[in-house]
């Protein structure tokens, strides 16, 4: 039991996750240069002692831009997940508590959304909302909402029939007290755990929208946008695209390892 509790992979992921968060909170401490300072004389230089990750086509330090990109990329991922969780909880709760035509209407609508690929949904949403950091975050949240709505609906309906909620009814608790004190807290536990897994997907979708030019405006540093910048130089200067890509991959892995471990513990 205790051996399983702190598996090396999980510890490593926690450490890496803490590192990524530190980058997002205080990029200035870790970045060797200003992320926006161009130096045309040093454009597209390979990784060396001065520029560990090399420089891009404007001579900006790639390491500095990746470090500074952490905040936007992670904020989009976590922000979108948080918003989706909130919206999904409201929809799922409304469906579970009302039943009948309200539930059918809401949940079938969610099913329709779920039947579309998530990224496609996010693209449609960003087209309606408009591009930019906020627009892309909202779009990713829209794409992720149906999944949480469905889960919350199922959880709430299950917890509602459990013995302790029935005991609450027999005690004479008012419906609102029952839901706020007993139903929601017990229903949301597993949902929160699954949301940690959703953060990885949200980071990926956020980066994808940025890559397509629908995210933060240039010259803002964001991993998806950086990846897009490097696309034209893949053959001559691989490092411009490689390191932002690595950052995306790494953070998705970290989030998934942590999320899976939490889910495993929760289910046990």
């Amino acid at each position: 039991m205790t051996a399983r509790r702190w598996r090396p992979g999980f510890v490593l992921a926690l450490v890496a996750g803490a590192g990524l968060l530190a980058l997002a909170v205080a990029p200035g401490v870790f970045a060797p240069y200003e992320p926006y300072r161009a130096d045309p004389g040093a454009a597209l230089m390979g990784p060396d002692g001065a520029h560990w990750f090399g420089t891009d086509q404007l001579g900006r330090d790639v390491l500095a831009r990746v470090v500074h990109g952490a905040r936007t990329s992670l904020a989009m991922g976590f922000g979108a997940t948080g918003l989706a969780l909130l919206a999904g909880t409201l929809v799922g709760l409304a469906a579970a508590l009302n039943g009948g035509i309200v539930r059918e209407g809401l949940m079938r609508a969610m099913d329709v959304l779920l039947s579309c690929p998530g990224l496609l949904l996010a693209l449609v949403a960003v087209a309606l909302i408009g591009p930019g950091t906020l627009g892309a975050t909202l779009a990713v949240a829209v794409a992720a909402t149906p999944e949480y709505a469905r889960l919350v609906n199922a959880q709430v309906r299950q917890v509602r029939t459990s013995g302790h909620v029935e005991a609450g009814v027999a005690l004479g608790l008012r419906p609102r007290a029952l839901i706020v004190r007993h139903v929601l807290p017990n229903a949301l536990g597993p949902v929160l755990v699954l949301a940690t897994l959703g953060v990885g997907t949200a980071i990926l979708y956020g980066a994808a929208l940025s890559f397509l030019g629908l995210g933060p405006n240039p010259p803002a540093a964001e991993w998806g946008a950086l990846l897009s910048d490097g696309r034209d130089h893949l053959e001559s200067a691989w490092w411009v695209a490689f390191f932002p890509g690595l950052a995306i991959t790494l953070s998705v892995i970290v989030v998934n390892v942590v999320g899976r471990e939490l889910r495993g513990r929760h289910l046990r």
Partner: protein
Amino acid sequence: MSLLTVEGLTVEFGGARAVRGVSFGVGKGECLAIVGESGSGKSVTARSLVGLSGGRVAADRLEFGGEDLRGLPERAWRRIRGRRIGFVLQDALQALDPLRTVGREVAEPLVVHRTVPRRRIPDRVRRLLEDAGVPDPERRAGQYPHQLSGGLRQRALIASALAAEPELIVADEPTTALDVGTAAQVLDLLAGLRDRGTGVILISHDLSVVARLADRIAVMKDGLLVEQGPAGQVLTAPRAPYTRMLLDAVPSGYAEPVEVGEPVLEARSVSKRYDGRTVVDGVSFELRAGESLGLVGGSGSGKTTLARIALGLVEPDAGTVLLDGEPWSGLPERRRRPRRARIQPVPQDPYGAFDPRYTVGRLLDEASRLSGETATAEDLLRQVGLTGELLDRRPRDLSGGQRQRVAIARALALRPAVLVCDEPTSALDVSVQAGILALLDRLQRERGLALLFISHDLAVVRKVTQRVVELADGRVVASGPTRDWRGDRETIPEPHRI
């Protein structure tokens, strides 16, 4: 000659010793009962006899039919398990594969051990089911476990354990999940096997079960054997104080008469149907302040549905329920809520009745606030024989008996007039059960509480109730003073439906 000889058996789980140096033996045609409360190590002992303990097993001697079972590899165990030693588990629904028919399940040992030619297997399965007391075996063999009642599943499991004609049967609480009538049939089946020369090891917490079948009884506590001897001697003249305590805890005798007051709860021709099946059919009863009314019957007789109707958790399809002489059924929840404090449940599974995130203190405070009860949570705990130490614990950190006392304390916080107790002690050890029954009896007398007491255990019903209503298939088949009621013969239900 001894079939199984065990000397100095020890089972460890990561340093914790569940069984500590236990010795016993079983001969052909003999039934040894191993009795003990939860945590005594009796189940672990049973499982180590078929190589399924899951812990580290050591023994000075562990011989079965002349073969040393110590340190057998899993392959060798598979040769013995099922073929030479049959194992019957407590929970037949979990032990049977839900995706396979009963017939295939019973046939499995025959197929695996190749004891019968393949073409004769269906015939043999039918006979095994028939011998196990499964009516209409041909049809049953084609059904899945969920289509069978609990009693039939347990008998199918026994049929499967017997299929390869093992020399020894190890049965771990084979009747605990069954109602009285079905349990009696299962015990008769085991008795028949013993009489035909099979050795039987019966694991049970229930001394009345053991008394019917055992030739010898071994009593376990905390992983040790505290007493072992012929059944008659252990049951009538126990040497160990622990055995005496267990025997004293077995409910016996009748409840004292009480002075009753006004009717507090009345059911008038109440009926309820589920999925086209009538579960409760025109049941009427009256419960007066201060008295305890037993609601008895086999599984599926409608007791629990009736309890839920009384609690206002389920609406009857027909008939009415009155609480304090006023309508209670058929009200909108808004009008029922202010009166809910008057009637409170004492559940079978108190663990499930508590929000797992709440501490005992918070659970009790929540209830007190609803009624304006001024007694503190600690006072409430004291009223049910607990102390304030438990206030910060969560339900999962309590023992079964403590949980049930906390459930009663929470009900008391609402100052109810009626407690609806649905099998309140069926999940508890005998000694713990005795404490809970005494508590309920005291509350009934001191506070004039009325109890609606549901149980399938006749001894408990006699001990606790002044009057009984007996149900079968949702209908009242008998009612009257408990002393005049002869439940033993009448509650044994017909072989099950479906």
